[in-house]
Each structure stands twice: as C-alpha cells, then as structure tokens.
C-alpha cells in the first residue's frame, strides 16, 4: 500500500509538544474513517507512524485531521511539518469505537493525555446525535492544565448541558478549578447505572487498566468497556506482525477492543 499525498491545510498548536493538523488530499481522497480508526502518516524521508483520526467525523470534504505529539524522529517531523507541505497518508485502518452498541445507554468517555485525540470524534459524534444517548460524560486527565488538548473545545463542552465534563490533572497550576489526581477518582465518584453504561477508554496502558478495574468494580461489564490499544506498527494492514497482542493483530482486530478481550491479555507480563 502506497501513501497518498496530502497537504497540510491547517495546523493548530495544542500544547508545547502537540499540534492538530488538517490534511487535504493533493489528488485522490482516502475512504472516510470512523471514530477510533487510525492512519499511517509518512514524513518525507523520515518515516511513517500510526496516528489516530481526531477530527470531526461528520466532515465529508475528504480531509483527515490528526493530533500529533512529538516524541521521536518521525512524530517530530510530522509535528514540525508546516502548512502547505505534503505528507503521505495510508488508511484508514483498524476497528473504530462501537457507538452503535451505546445507543440508548449512558456513554462515559475517559481520556488520559493524548488519549483524547481518538476520543474527540466520539464526543463530536455523540453530540451530533445527542438524542441517541442518555448521559454523556467526558472524564479527561492531563499532567498539567496546560497539557489538555483542544482546550477551547473542552471549555465549550464544559458549558454545554448535553455533556458532563470532568477534568483532572496531576500537577495543578495557579487558578486551576478542576480536579487533582488520577482519572479513576472522578470515575469512582460518577453517578452510574452500571448495566446501562458503556465506557470508552484511551490513554496509557496502566491508566486504562486502572479505569477498567474501577468501572468493573462498580459493576460495568467488561464487554461494555472499550479500550484503544497501542502497539508498534509498521504496516497497519496486518502483515508486519509487530502489533500482536496475543491473539490480536492490533491494527486489524483493534485498536479498539472490548475489555473482556483486552483485559486478560494486558494482565500478562510482556505479552
């Protein structure tokens, strides 16, 4: 599979090391992605990495939006690509969040750090089709207040009556009015109807495990918890073998899987 050239149409700085870019096809557009899927983004001569789709799923102009944190050579190059420059894009790959199964139920979205990126399309989709869900809750954690992605949007959502937003940080700054501590704390305090709740989690693996444990402790069934997994990926198409997690090829069977599948695998050391 060959990358399809896309131009950086728009680039917004999110935090000191993360940007959100909107990519428009130079010629051909790729198929539309579903919330939770990812693309392989290629920076000229530097390399290619997996990056989730973080834009509004209702856009139909062929663009694709991604939020990238610079952590290594490739992500740094993608992060630094200026508007107008061309990147290669392949995809979309993988499973998306299963929103259909949440219809008529409470939706709890839990994001840690950059984990908010693949969950933003879910929130946007839920808000666009608000009547299909009962409660919609977003619990978002970050290290510091300045490290929240989409800060304006989060603020806007916080005022929105259709969604409850709960923010928490490890290290609060002056004037911080939100919570302090791990995302599991607000999760434990949430007013839940376990049998009617579906939770979507994304963030560092330990965070997802703790959150799932908290939710399960409160009676939410493992299959009603969806997590987005991260493994090394080279091809995105189930052929390079790198992303295996036990029986799963994360790029094909994931990244989104239910916790009845993921839970037992994540418990095994170095699987």
């Amino acid at each position, binding site marked *: 599979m060959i990358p399809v050239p896309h131009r950086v149409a728009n680039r917004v700085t999110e935090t000191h090391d993360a940007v959100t870019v909107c990519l428009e096809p130079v010629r051909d557009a790729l198929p539309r992605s579903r919330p939770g899927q990812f693309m392989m983004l290629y920076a*000229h*001569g*530097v*390399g290619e990495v997996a990056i989730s789709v973080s834009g509004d799923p209702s856009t139909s102009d062929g663009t694709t939006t991604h939020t990238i944190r610079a952590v*290594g*050579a*490739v992500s*740094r*190059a993608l992060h630094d690509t200026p508007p107008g420059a061309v990147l290669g894009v392949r995809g979309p790959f993988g499973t998306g969040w299963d929103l259909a199964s949440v219809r008529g139920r409470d939706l709890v979205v839990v994001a840690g750090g950059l984990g908010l990126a693949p969950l933003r399309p879910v929130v946007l989709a839920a808000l666009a089709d608000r009547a299909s869900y009962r409660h919609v809750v977003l619990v978002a954690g970050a290290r510091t207040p300045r490290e929240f992605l989409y800060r304006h949007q989060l603020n806007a959502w916080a005022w929105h009556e259709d969604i409850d937003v709960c923010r928490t940080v490890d290290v609060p700054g002056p004037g911080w009015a939100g919570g302090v501590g791990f995302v599991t704390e607000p999760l434990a305090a949430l007013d839940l109807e376990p049998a009617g709740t579906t939770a979507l989690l994304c963030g560092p693996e330990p965070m997802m495990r703790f959150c799932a444990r908290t939710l399960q402790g409160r009676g939410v069934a493992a299959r009603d918890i969806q997590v987005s997994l991260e493994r090394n990926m080279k091809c995105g198409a189930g052929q390079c073998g790198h992303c295996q997690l036990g029986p799963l090829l994360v790029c094909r069977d994931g990244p989104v899987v239910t916790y009845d599948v993921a839970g037992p695998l994540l418990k095994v050391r170095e699987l």
Partner: protein
Amino acid sequence: MGKPTLAVWKFASCDGCQLTLLDCEDELLALAGEITIAHFLEASSAVVPGPYDVSLVEGSITTPADERRIHEIREQSRVLVAIGACATAGGIQALRNFADVREFTSVVYARPEYIDTLATSTPASEHVRVDFELRGCPIDRGQLLETLCALLAGREPATPRTSVCTECKRRGLTCVMVADGTPCLGPVTQAGCGALCPAYRRGCFGCFGPMAEPNVPALLPLLRARGMSQGEVERVFATFNVAAFGRGSHDEPSH
C-alpha cells in the same frame, strides 16, 4: 541556511573508520556537495573552525590530553557520532584495561618514562554524551552513509541492534555453526556487517560488538561443543570489543 558542516576527529585508532569515508568512492564528491567537510585532517589541510553540525569521532580515549579534547569536541558539535569499536567500546587497545599498563609500556618501549598514557582505553561515551554509535571494526560503509543521510534528513539512522544471524539468513547463507560445526559469534553479535564472515564460511568473531541483550552464557557451551577450548572462548570475546562483551565469557573458572 548554509550547508551543514562535518568534522572528523581521531583518537587512538588505526584510521580505518575515517578511511571508510574516503572509501565511499561513488558518494564522496556528492557528499562534499551537500555538506561542508569542515575538519578532516586525513583528507584536507583546510580547516573551518567550529561549531560543527556533525562530528564523527574515531578512536578511544587513552591520554589525559585526549580526555580534554573529547570534551572540547562535544562542546563544538551539535551531533556527535562515535564511529567504530575504538570509539564505541575502547577498541582492541582496551585490553590494557585488564592488564598492567606500566608493564605493557615496558614491553613496547625501552624507556617507558617518555610515554604519557592513561591506564585505560575508553569509549567516547564514558566521557561525553554521544548521540549515535556506529559499531564495527571497522564500521560498514553502508551504515556510515545511511547515518549521514539520516542525519541530513532528520531521520533515526537504521542501524538495527539485532543479531548477525538475521542478516546471515536474509542473505540466504547457510549457517556455519549448524552445517559446518564452525564456532560463530553471530548469535550474540550486532548486525551491520552484512554477515561477512559466514559468507566466507568463517565464524563471526564479533567485530561489531554485542547486540542488544545478548545471551552470551547460552552461546558458550555451543562454542565449546564445536571445538573451542576455554582459552579460545575467552580470547575471541576479548579482542576488538573486549570492554563491551566484558568478561561475560567467563561463566566458569578457567582452571
């Protein structure tokens, strides 16, 4: 922005690794077109003062003056690449680390008092921060070019930390350990040479140093089963990368 600058520095070594740059016969002039070779005494008497974008450091640190100089080089270099077994592991001269230098000196030089030398031969990374290491005694030309191209492109150089066996098998060579009973260090040695020795039906002798997390103890009985004496086993690990393989080859007393 001007062309990036490259500097080449020498410490205790045989010059083979920096010669590798001149051995890039097909690329040398193109390279000189893309970067300014600002300091490369083996090749040029023109010297451009620092700072330098990339410094290639060859050789190990063996004298007090070297120790000062490597710090000066670090300060002047944006990216510092240690090239070759001497610069990455102390080289064969690191054998002195396990011996008595005064005695060594007296063997080579009748009047040792003239000789100003450290008791040890150490890699650059023991003195300063090193950004990349290119393994090998000598380094591989392809890896050197890849590293320079990668640095120019802002990419992580592709210098895998896996075993020589992976290259051996990709080349379609027949394993000398299994088919010929020849002792081979390939299973614990870092890839990069292209499985040169097995291609000549010779066992790898580890000139690229240990791969990431080598299981040396598991190899030792296999070497002995293929006819190496304990002394030979110890010596083969105690050659070009003696300080990197360390004394891992001693899983049992030799007497």
